[in-house]
Each structure stands twice: as C-alpha cells, then as structure tokens.
C-alpha cells in the first residue's frame, strides 16, 4: 500500500503544481495517471504547441511547461503510479481514503485531489458491430507484449505515429503485417513514413490505402477482416488474420470517477470555490475536471485552484496546527531531499 498525504489523480499541469504548493506546507504527494508519462494533455495531445497565457511566460511549449513543472517539484519527491487508472475509492472508518487502480495498486491518503482534466485517456474504438466480442481473442487497442504477435498474421489500422511505428516493429515479429489507412497520406514522423515505404517496397509489409476495415469475422476467435477500398470501384478484400490492432489515438473519458458518488454537472465535478472541495469531504477537484459558476478551463486557473486546495488540505490533515502563508521569497523552498533554495542574503557593507 502506497501511503501519502495528498493523493493526486491526474499528473497534468494542475496536478503537478499541486505537488509544489503541498510541498511548501510539508505535505507529501503521490500522483496516479492512466497515461505512461506525466503532463496530461500537454504531453499527450499538444507537446509542441505554444501556450501564450501562462503568467510570466510570453510563450512556452506545452511540453516545456511540463518539463519545468517537473523540475520545480523535484525536491518534493512526488511518487508516481503511471499507466494505471484510478478505479475505486473506499472511505475508511477514520475518514481516510484508499484508491485502487485498474491494476490493483492501492493508495492510502487522508486527502484525495482529483486533477483529472478531461478524464483518463482511453483508446478510440472503431465502430464495428462485433468488436467487443473479439477483445480477448484477436482485437487489442494497445500493444503491451509484442511477443504475442510472433508468427501471427496481424492487421493494423490507423494513420498516425503509433500505427506506423508498430507496423514497422511487428514487420520483424509477425508472419504477416498489413497496414490499413483511410488515406494515402500518413500523419507521422517522416522517418517512420519512409521506413514503412521501404518495408512495403521490400514486400515485408502489406499496405492497403485508402481503405477501411468494415467487418470482423470469426467464431470463437478473430479469423478474418473485411476491408473495403475507398475508391470508385469499392473493391472488397477478405483478409485472413489472427489479430486486429486499431490504433486511432486516445480520447478522454471521465470514466470510473463518475461513479464515485461525486456531484457531476456538465461532465465535470461540482466544487465549492472556497477550497475546491467536492460534495464528499476530503475529496477535492481541481483544474479542468471541476466546475463552478464562472469556471474557465485554463491552466492558470488550475494553478490557483491547486494552491487553495492545498491550504484546505493542510487544515484537514493538521486541524490543530496554526499556520500562516509564507512567501517563497521569504521562506525559500526546503525540499524533502534536504535541498534548500533561498534568496541570497543582502550584503551590508559600509561605504568609506
């Protein structure tokens, strides 16, 4: 069981900055995120896009903002459970919480802060009738263990980096790899596009474009897919395969958090703007995941919400302690790793 003071669900910019504000109050944090890396949307959707409304940064790339936040919180030694989705929450008799992920990792904390953004990122599933029937017998939306595909006949669908990269990788593993995409153009790194072209020319990869998979066939397991060429002729191809891997990117879903008994409005969690607490005392919601009158889904608003949340969390964790807010310019920043940052002392010297 992982124990911490504030358990933060969501490692986007708001969740990361909450670690800093908590650290100033000597509270330790642990973050859970369904994605394999920190940064939330900033890392997953638009790392190379500039943001112009972070105070003090006339322009900053989303990916750089995440790197800076990670640097800023480093000395507070946050823990991370990445690649796992927060699934259930249990309130114990003493008022503390246990949050369990989809992989069974348990986290125990007196305060839970949901900084879940738009929700957890789930693979986008194509609209095919019997798709779910084959989810354990041939269809997968992400590749966890490439060895599963050794000497198998695999069809991949999609036109982005992951479709290209996995086609390249599996070309050496599987007995046959077919890549199906709705257009002739691919949206991926130039290297990957060229590599796929090369593999195609060598006959190591079967490329079918512009085309779409429209049906899945098989009894107990996937046996073939029906592909239709998007052209005037509408040629149909029945392809024998063992595995179908649709790679259409990820889309956010509020997911299991929606079933935690929290008050939901407009796909977001209602909070009190006094301290961003939800209807369940001890559970807070900050950043894009919350809503209140006047709410704006901006990173800078998430930073503010994280700051006020930490003050309230401190009171909840230490009801008997007196506290006044201290400026970092005055108090400096004392990390849990023993480091201390502070303003250099002014030198007083007499002028002769």
């Amino acid at each position, binding site marked *: 069981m992982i124990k911490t003071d504030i358990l933060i669900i969501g490692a986007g910019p708001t969740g990361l900055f909450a670690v800093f504000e908590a650290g100033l109050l000597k509270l330790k944090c642990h973050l859970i995120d369904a994605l394999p890396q920190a940064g939330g949307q900033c890392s997953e959707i638009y790392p190379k896009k500039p943001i112009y409304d972070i105070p003090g940064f006339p322009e900053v790339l989303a990916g750089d903002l995440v790197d800076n936040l990670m640097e800023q919180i480093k000395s507070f030694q946050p823990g991370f459970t990445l690649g796992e989705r927060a699934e259930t929450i249990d309130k114990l008799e003493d008022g503390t919480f246990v949050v369990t992920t989809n992989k069974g990792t348990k986290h125990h904390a007196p305060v839970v802060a949901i900084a879940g953004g*738009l929700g957890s990122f789930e693979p986008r599933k194509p609209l095919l009738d019997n798709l779910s029937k084959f989810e354990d017998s041939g269809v997968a939306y992400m590749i966890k263990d490439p060895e599963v595909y050794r000497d198998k006949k695999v069809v991949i669908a999609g036109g982005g980096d992951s479709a290209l990269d996995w086609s390249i990788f599996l070309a050496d593993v599987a007995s046959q790899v077919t890549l199906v995409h709705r257009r002739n153009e691919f949206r991926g790194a130039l290297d990957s596009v060229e590599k796929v072209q090369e593999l195609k020319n060598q006959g190591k990869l079967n490329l079918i474009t512009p085309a779409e998979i429209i049906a899945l066939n098989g009894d107990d397991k996937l046996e073939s897919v029906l592909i239709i060429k998007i052209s005037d002729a509408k040629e149909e191809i029945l392809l024998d395969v063992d595995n179908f891997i649709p790679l259409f990117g990820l889309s956010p879903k509020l997911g299991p958090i929606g079933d935690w008994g929290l008050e939901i409005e407009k796909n977001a969690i209602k909070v009190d703007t006094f301290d961003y607490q939800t209807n369940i005392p001890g559970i807070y919601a900050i950043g894009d995941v919350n809503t209140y009158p006047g709410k704006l889904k901006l990173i800078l608003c998430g930073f503010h919400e994280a700051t006020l949340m930490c003050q309230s969390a401190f009171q909840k964790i230490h009801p008997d302690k007196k506290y006044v807010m201290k400026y970092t310019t005055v108090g400096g920043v004392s990390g849990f790793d023993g480091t201390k940052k502070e303003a250099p002392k002014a030198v007083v010297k007499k002028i002769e």
Partner: protein
Amino acid sequence: MTDIKITIIDRDGVSHEIDAPTDMNMNLMEVVRSYELAPEGTIGICGGMAMCASCQCYVLSDTELPEMGDDEEAMLSEAFNVKDNSRLGCQLHITEDMDGLEVELAPEEL
C-alpha cells in the same frame, strides 16, 4: 456588428436557426457551445486544435466554405462517422460568406 444566420441541427435532430457573430473571432464549434446546442464536455474537447473530432458536423447547404487544412484533413481521416460532407466546426471561422449555412452535428463518439 454583423450577425449571420446559421441553421444547426443538434444531435437529437432538433433544428436551431441562430445568429452567429462575424466580429467575435469565433468558429462554428464555439458558436455551438455558446448556444449550448451540445452538452459541455461533448464538443470542442481539444479546445479547437483539430486534434479530436468532437465538433465534426455535416454540411447540408451548398455554402462555399474555406478549403480544409492539413490538420483538419488528417483528423477527419481518423475520425469515425465521417461522410463526404464532414467538416470540423473548430476549423470553420465564422465570416459573412457563411450566411445561410446549414449543418448537422455528427453523433458523439462513444
């Protein structure tokens, strides 16, 4: 100030004739949100970067629209429920030329 008339058929099939401002630097996705014709959190998820297809709509009128950019074309090639007349609302900047535009919101991806 100049408003144009746009007809938007929401996801429940209800038709709305609305006034869309041409001087507010708005796109079609934002107009839909401003009139709350689709619930918050189900449209404009990526904020308007052509990185999701939650604002996909079908253009029903023969209004002349700006050509698709690479981002929009790439996104629509990966989206679901795409038809020949699909566009991303976030890439359609409201201008006076769009007066009389009629669109239908594509179903929400589940």
